[in-house]
């Protein structure tokens, strides 16, 4: 008979491992089950290694534009193998970091494939055979994977998912990217900067369709200027691979079908949850299209079973998963009798989103259109980076910040940013939203000079007709 845990976390991505650490901090006897790499997709195959790739692309971009800063760089070239090697090194370092964190927090790590076998029972099949673990509570954090095109599944040779694109067998010369969400756009940006000829196909009428329409329009212009071909309102009808490349038939906005030849294709058309074969059905755990239904404290409909991250409802973001991990761990500690924890449900409108293309995109809350759709009467302010001293000094005057307020209460409903460093700035507005600030506190806040963040202040002022530098 195996020992009894207070909590077993199934999956060690940014949701799962954070949940395990928080639970251990609260004194829970905790185990984590992982089938592949500690840290999950995020730090092995997602967020982190792509940021490493994009950093190389960014520096390469600056080197090519050195003369704009009065510098000279000659005989510049990119070595895709070395760039990928650096990215893998970064992932490895972080993977070891998670291993260390598990050890430090005395969390039992069980490597293997986990399957629920009734309440509080989890069967783990690993290299060393099978074992059954028992726990008072189980958190499911198995995440999601890339969605395949039904007519052209990724083969890793010519048709790639994000995972292949991260360790490419060779540098693509002419790349087709299907889907312009965060993943599609980041790889499009990376390979474009690295010198590939990139075409992006998006089914919706604009790129990054979850962002504010003004941001989409700005990005499309910027990417086109960088040499990309952007096709919106378009769908790939057929995709055929050969030894030398991929041929695609794309139905354009006008309904006409155009054929194109590409060396490689990246499919980034969304995700599917990893909800198969983990025993959800036998326990009667409620799902919506494969995603587990949860309440604000990450409880499923079955007592003692919790779910966090991509396996649950959107947004499917690492930081949402991590935060849910903390909420679930605290709620479990509370259920086990800890009176000092007070978990609070998360408001999805306070979860920021970031896309690390060039220029960067960051946003939180409602877009202007969504706010109006929800019935708010809004006040909107926009401030362009061209009015910001620091942005001009950096040679990064491309971009703007837009804020949306509820006219009735002054509540900040949403903030939308595109341009240099915006992914590092969005937390300012996120804190504001979480604390339920109004325009008044944001106006009273002193922003440091010279920083691009002054544009945040100006954008708020602009919403009330008080912007100073335009």
């Amino acid at each position, binding site marked *: 008979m195996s020992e009894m845990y207070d909590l077993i976390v199934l999956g060690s991505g940014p949701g799962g491992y954070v949940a395990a650490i928080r639970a251990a901090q609260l004194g829970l006897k905790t185990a984590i089950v992982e089938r592949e790499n500690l840290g999950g997709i995020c730090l092995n195959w997602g967020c982190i290694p792509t940021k490493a790739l994009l950093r190389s692309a960014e520096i390469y971009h600056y080197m090519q534009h050195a003369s704009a800063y009065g510098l000279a760089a000659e005989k510049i070239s990119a070595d895709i193998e070395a760039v990928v090697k650096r990215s893998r090194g970064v992932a490895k370092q972080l993977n070891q970091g998670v291993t260390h964190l598990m050890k430090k927090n005395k969390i039992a790590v069980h490597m293997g494939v986990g399957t629920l076998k009734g309440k509080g029972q989890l069967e783990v099949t690993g290299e060393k055979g099978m074992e059954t673990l028992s726990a008072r509570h189980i958190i499911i954090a198995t995440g999601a994977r890339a969605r395949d095109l039904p007519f052209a599944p990724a083969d890793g040779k010519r048709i790639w998912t994000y995972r292949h694109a991260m360790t490419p067998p060779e540098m693509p010369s002419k790349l087709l990217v299907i889907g312009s969400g965060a993943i599609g756009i980041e790889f499009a940006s990376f390979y474009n900067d690295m010198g590939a000829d990139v075409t992006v196909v998006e089914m919706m009428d604009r790129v990054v369709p979850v962002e504010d329409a003004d941001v989409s329009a700005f990005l499309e212009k910027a990417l086109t200027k960088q040499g990309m071909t952007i096709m919106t309102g378009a769908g790939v009808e057929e995709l055929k691979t050969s030894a030398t490349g991929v041929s695609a038939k794309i139905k354009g906005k006008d309904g006409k079908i155009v054929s194109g030849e590409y060396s490689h294709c990246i499919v980034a058309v969304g995700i599917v949850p990893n909800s198969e074969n983990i025993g959800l059905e036998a326990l009667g755990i409620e799902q919506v299209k494969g995603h587990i239904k949860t309440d604000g404290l990450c409880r499923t409909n079955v007592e003692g079973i919790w779910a966090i991250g991509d396996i649950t409802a*959107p947004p499917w973001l690492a930081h949402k998963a991590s935060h849910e991990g903390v909420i679930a761990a605290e709620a479990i500690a509370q259920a086990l009798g800890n009176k000092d924890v007070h978990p609070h449900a998360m408001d999805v409108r306070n979860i920021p989103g970031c896309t690390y293309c060039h220029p960067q995109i960051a946003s939180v809350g409602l877009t202007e259109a969504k706010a109006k759709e929800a019935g708010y009467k809004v006040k909107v302010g926009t401030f362009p980076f061209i009015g910001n001293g620091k942005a001009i000094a950096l040679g990064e005057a491309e971009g703007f910040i837009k804020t949306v307020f*509820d006219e009735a209460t002054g509540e900040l409903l949403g903030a939308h940013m595109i341009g240099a460093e915006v992914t590092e700035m969005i937390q300012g507005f996120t804190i504001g939203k979480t604390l*339920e600030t109004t325009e008044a506190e944001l106006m009273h806040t002193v922003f440091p000079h010279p920083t691009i963040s002054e544009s945040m202040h100006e954008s708020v002022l602009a919403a009330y007709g008080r912007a100073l530098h335009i």
Partner: protein
Amino acid sequence: MSIEIKMPALSPTMEEGTLAKWLVKEGDTVQSGDLLAEIETDKATMEFEAVDEGVIGQIVVPAGTEGVKVGTVIAVMAGEGGTTAPAPVAKAAPEPSPAPAPAPVAPVAAPVPAPAPVPTPAIAPVASGNRVKASPIARRLAKARNIDLATLTGTGPNGRIVKVDVEAAAGVAPAPAVAIATSAPAAAAAPAPAPIAAQDFGIPHEAIKLSNMRKTIARRLTESKQTVPHIYLTVDVRLDALLKLRTELNASLASRGVKLSVNDLLIKALAQSLMIVPECNVQFAGDQMLQFSRADISVAVSIPSGLITPIIKGANDKSVSAISTEMADLAARAKEGKLQPQEYQGGTASLSNMGMMGIKQFEAVINPPQAMIMAIGAGEKRPYVIDDALGIATVMSATGSFDHRAIDGADGARLMSAFRELVEKPLGMLA
């Protein structure tokens, strides 16, 4: 050395309570075990005993304060050999700096007189003398709607009053929610039902403050009627045999000082019926159903401040005399507000008898999470067909309310029939 006396958790689920009455005053010397105060929870008033010996230095939370969170310091005691001088509440030395006054209690409903020796904040307090923790949007909304923040209970971190709290108090629907996860039931502490704005139409009236019990009744009955689909099944039951048996039993039990009531016998009958039809001894729990293997009968007892339902546990296995003795004790203590939580929380089904008030027949509201309640009307002489001839019989109407999610009409009917059978042929209850 001073000892902080904190609001105790008198039941596992207690989060806050009303400090109904102090039984000691400042300067009193108390021994371990002495009664310090009476504390009212949502259903009962309980006595709070001293754990340590010492002298009551200062009473921090005055009697009558509602919504005192568990763990809040309510009094400070000077330990053995200590002085009786009021000990400062805040541990930090009271510096003249504009440190905000440590709020001893989370926002309470009634304006609490500020505890004496705490430093006053330099910034003017917002309301009622105590610092109110509230978000800027909550403050702005409260101002616009003319709501005193000090009257609200915050649901944000550390009791901070946030936007939804003000919106709930204003009785407005929360602002349009957009794509809120898949979240079904808003988790955490389910917010109390939004206060309903009173409309007096200028009619002379007296505003009566709700007791904790009244609030609980309001919340639970609303929840029941809104979420539980009720079905009602009524049967007429002849009581003559049961009344005769009761007379006989009472004659022989008199020496033991036991006097059975009709209700005691009906408790037994209901418990036994639930054993015969276990499909009705259930609890609906979303994705599953609990079928109980014993019948714990919650019996509605009317008390001055409202209603409470003490439980006869395992009534199916108890003799009617045991049920009678236990019920008499529970009812007496219920009227004094002295029941322990485990004595009224739980139960697998309920019995409510309004016969003594002359009610002919009624439908009761199910007491969640239970799935049935039996409503008993008055036993009265009625014209009755006996052996195809019109005669007179003592008859009562009994109506079962069933949670239709868990119980089908046919099963409910079987339970009603079993109940009638037992009451009409009551010897079966003694077997």
